[in-house]
């Protein structure tokens, strides 16, 4: 490999060449500094593969960089025949195709790099990356390259691949395409009919010979046949289904207007008597299908993206130990109870089981809500979904897949999601009244024309048809979908991803907000919160802790990101598990550890007190036998937590539901200004779920905000469930709203934006009803002919669309890359 000579990264000093993030101490003086090994590896590979163009492209797009998070897996599981059978399909010519969900896709340059990968990996034929869903379609030649090598290449440059989860994608795609073809056919026919009708209206005004008029009418009839027979049946089926369930919705008045107007116009064409409405009815079908397509498309995008995410955080593979003691990576589904598995640091425990060998610490926060890492050693039970923080472990599987604790929790989530009643959307509630009103009005018009004005039966029928066309709820049908689609797209760009649009309608009613603690109110990672000691000591402590993977060492590194000016000689390092670390730094003897590992006297007791009072784990630093500093380490509250809770408290009752110790939860509640009664600690996932169920059953419209697997069932049961940024896959599946921006402040934006969005919807609905009322009164008096209907209808629809576009729903997004 050649060393790069030309400066390719344009990163600022002290910034990672690959991603632009600050470089940790000790690496700043490198000619090309990197923030992490992942970035360094990605940078070199991109150069070696001739894909340096990535940086220039990213620069040109003004897109931010992102650190290359590599998993370092061997991806041997991807070569398993059962895996390929399940996820990949064969193409002619011996090639295969698979859909992979890629982590870490964040800008347009990512698309370029991923799609250029076939240049670097022989046997990789083509990659197409969907930027919106982060799904890559990969074609490769199994004879030339195993899929695991392709996966390793993607992983090495920071796009960890996962097999696509979820089913029904092919059906959804077929459905989307079918709807688009229906829309295309309807639009083409409607526009041509509109042209022909233009001639007819001109003929009405200036006179046109009978043969032309009849010809034009017949052509319109023929052109509207595909619309009625191919495009419109979607509405007829919906209307019929609504009738059978005795829940008439918007499709019913639409179908009535279409069928009535078409039948009347067809008869009028054949007999050569009376007006025709072909232009209005086909335009109606095209407009309504267009709105439906837009809405469906936006919803599909949400589904696709989050099906991809769904298991990205959950157990996907395991390392099975063979009889020869060699660990082989296999798909998680193939593990059976009794198998011996190896779990490396940083990986998830794939099964419920017992530790056979090794000592380590586990992070179970997503399962239990306790932020403190749990030490484990041989003979102790471990649970699937926990993260191994320390050293490699050998585990014997007792329960796998759905039988694990986390599997049971996920089953709870599915149960809760299935039990949710469907939401009746605002527009559908309105349309029920509307259907009855239109039918009554139609009957009244017919009766009045016949009896009151003494018209003939055909003239009365003409009036009824004009009424049906004019009152057809086109604008009403557009009012909600267009406003929602526009509003939710803006929300998504502002970092608020609304998966379930119905949740927006429930936002204004929310009167109770339940929050998880670990990872939601707090950052979910230990930091040095208190430091009582000399600031210059930091560098020495960091130097000593540099090699340690213990959570305390990570907390120091995370908190003290300070440049190290002098490389400090460190030797005689000795780490005592569960107690502390000692060593010689700059020739001075340092001991860093818990009280007991570092000797304490009365003075030390005094200095420990503030940390203990704040509920933090105290860590002492001793230099040459004398106490030099005390650090209080704990899970810090998010910067915007207090302000957000205060704001939420103005209109809702805020409570904390946590699996952590009640005393800790009470302290967090106090620091947020919440009364002690609002703090609930020591809750199991089931207890959280029951709390939410009780709250909603007790008549409190409840919002649940959380991040862990243990919150997922509660999120699904709340009237609105919000998963915060960085949460687990399970919480994202269960929630209605996902935050894709860090922090809690987006929750407030969700409330204000949602309220404004509902305002726009309501404004649209009121406008379309007023229009219908005016149209209906004109038709009732027989003042609306085909031309009037053809002018009024698109005008009202256009107004509704404009009103949705300019509606102030969610705030304009900050400028983001691509």
């Amino acid at each position: 490999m050649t060393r790069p000579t030309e400066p390719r990264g344009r990163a600022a000093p002290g910034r990672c060449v690959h991603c632009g993030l600050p470089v940790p101490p000790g690496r700043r003086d490198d000619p090309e500094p990197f923030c992490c090994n992942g970035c360094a590896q990605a940078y070199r590979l991109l150069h070696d593969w001739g894909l340096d163009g990535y940086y220039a492209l990213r620069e040109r797009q003004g897109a931010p960089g992102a650190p290359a998070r590599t998993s370092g897996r061997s991806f041997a599981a991807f070569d398993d025949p059962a895996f390929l059978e399940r996820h990949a399909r064969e193409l002619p010519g011996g090639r295969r195709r698979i859909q992979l969900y890629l982590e870490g896709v964040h800008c347009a340059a990512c698309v370029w790099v991923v799609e250029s990968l076939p240049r670097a990996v022989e046997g990789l034929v083509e990659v197409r990356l969907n930027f919106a869903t982060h799904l890559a379609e990969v074609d490769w030649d199994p004879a030339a390259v195993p899929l695991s090598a392709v996966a390793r290449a993607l992983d090495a440059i920071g796009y960890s691949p996962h097999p696509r989860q979820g089913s029904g994608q092919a059906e959804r795609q077929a459905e989307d395409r079918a709807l688009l073809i229906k829309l295309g056919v309807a639009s083409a026919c409607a526009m041509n009919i509109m042209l022909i009708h233009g001639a007819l209206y001109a003929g009405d005004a200036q006179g046109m010979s009978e043969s032309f008029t009849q010809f034009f009418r017949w052509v319109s009839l023929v052109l509207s046949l595909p619309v009625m027979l191919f495009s419109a049946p979607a509405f007829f089926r919906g209307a019929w289904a609504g009738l059978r369930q005795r829940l008439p919705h918007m499709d019913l008045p639409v179908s009535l207007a279409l069928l009535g107007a078409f039948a009347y116009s067809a008869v009028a064409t054949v007999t050569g008597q009376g007006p025709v409405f072909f232009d209005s009815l086909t335009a109606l079908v095209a407009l309504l299908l267009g709105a439906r397509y837009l809405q469906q498309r936006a919803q599909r995008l949400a589904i696709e993206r989050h099906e991809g995410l769904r298991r990205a955080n959950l157990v996907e593979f395991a390392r099975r130990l063979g009889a020869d003691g060699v660990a082989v990576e296999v798909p998680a589904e193939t593990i059976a109870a009794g198998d011996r598995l190896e779990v490396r640091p940083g990986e998830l425990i794939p099964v419920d089981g017992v530790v056979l060998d090794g000592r380590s610490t586990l992070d179970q926060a997503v399962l239990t809500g306790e932020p403190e890492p749990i030490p484990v050693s041989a003979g102790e039970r471990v649970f699937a979904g926990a993260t191994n923080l320390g050293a490699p472990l050998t585990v014997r599987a007792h329960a796998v897949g759905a039988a694990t604790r986390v599997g049971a929790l996920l089953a709870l989530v599915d149960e809760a999601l299935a039990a949710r009643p469907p939401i009746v959307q605002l527009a559908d509630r309105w349309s029920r009244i509307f259907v009855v009103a239109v039918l009554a009005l139609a009957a009244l018009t017919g009766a009045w024309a016949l009896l009151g004005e003494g018209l003939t039966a055909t003239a009365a029928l003409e009036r009824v048809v004009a009424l049906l066309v004019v009152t057809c709820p086109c604008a009403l049908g557009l009012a909600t979908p267009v406003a929602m689609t526009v509003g939710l797209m803006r929300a998504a760009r502002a970092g608020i991803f609304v998966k379930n649009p119905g949740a927006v309608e429930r936002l204004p009613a929310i009167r109770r907000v339940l929050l998880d603690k670990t990872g939601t109110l707090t950052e979910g990672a230990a930091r040095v919160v208190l430091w009582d000691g000399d600031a210059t000591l930091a560098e020495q402590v960091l130097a000593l802790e540099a090699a340690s993977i213990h959570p305390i060492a990570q907390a120091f590194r995370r908190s003290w990101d300070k440049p190290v000016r002098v490389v400090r000689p460190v030797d005689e390092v000795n780490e005592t598990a569960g107690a502390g670390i000692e060593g010689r730094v700059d020739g001075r003897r340092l001991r860093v550890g818990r009280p007991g590992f570092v000797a304490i006297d009365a003075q030390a007791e005094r200095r420990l007190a503030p940390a203990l009072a704040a509920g933090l784990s105290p860590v002492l630093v001793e230099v040459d036998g004398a106490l030099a500093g005390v650090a209080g380490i704990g899970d810090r509250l998010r910067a915007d937590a207090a302000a957000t809770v205060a704001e939420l408290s103005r209109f809702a009752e805020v409570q904390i539901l946590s699996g952590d110790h009640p005393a800790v939860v009470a302290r967090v509640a106090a620091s947020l200004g919440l009364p002690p009664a609002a703090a609930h600690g020591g809750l199991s996932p089931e207890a959280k779920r029951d709390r939410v169920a009780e709250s909603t059953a007790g008549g409190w419209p409840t919002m649940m905000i959380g991040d862990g697997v243990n919150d997922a069932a509660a999120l699904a049961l709340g009237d609105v469930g919000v998963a915060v940024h960085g949460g687990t896959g399970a919480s994202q599946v269960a929630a209605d709203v996902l935050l894709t921006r860090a922090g809690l402040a987006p929750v407030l934006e969700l409330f204000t934006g949602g309220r404004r969005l509902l305002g726009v919807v309501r404004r649209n609905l009121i406008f379309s009803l007023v229009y219908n009322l005016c149209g209906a009164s004109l038709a009732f008096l027989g003042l609306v002919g085909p031309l009037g209907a053809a002018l009024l209808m698109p005008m009202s629809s256009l107004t509704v669309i404009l009103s949705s576009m300019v509606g102030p729903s969610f705030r304009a997004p900050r400028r983001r890359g691509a």
Partner: protein
Amino acid sequence: MALIFILLPLALLVAGVMVALFVWAVRAGQFDDLETPAVRILLDDEPAPRREEPPPTPTDSQREGERS
């Protein structure tokens, strides 16, 4: 004016061909992803030299630890 009896069906025939083309395009998947092509068009003009030597495998190049 009688020409219209021939021209109008002819125009509709052309429109029919357009609709058929549209249906073909949809079936071929050209409307499945409307976002990436918008991004992709910005990328294609980037010169990317094709490398002749065999590419290193990802595992060969984990050399990040050796500089200090």
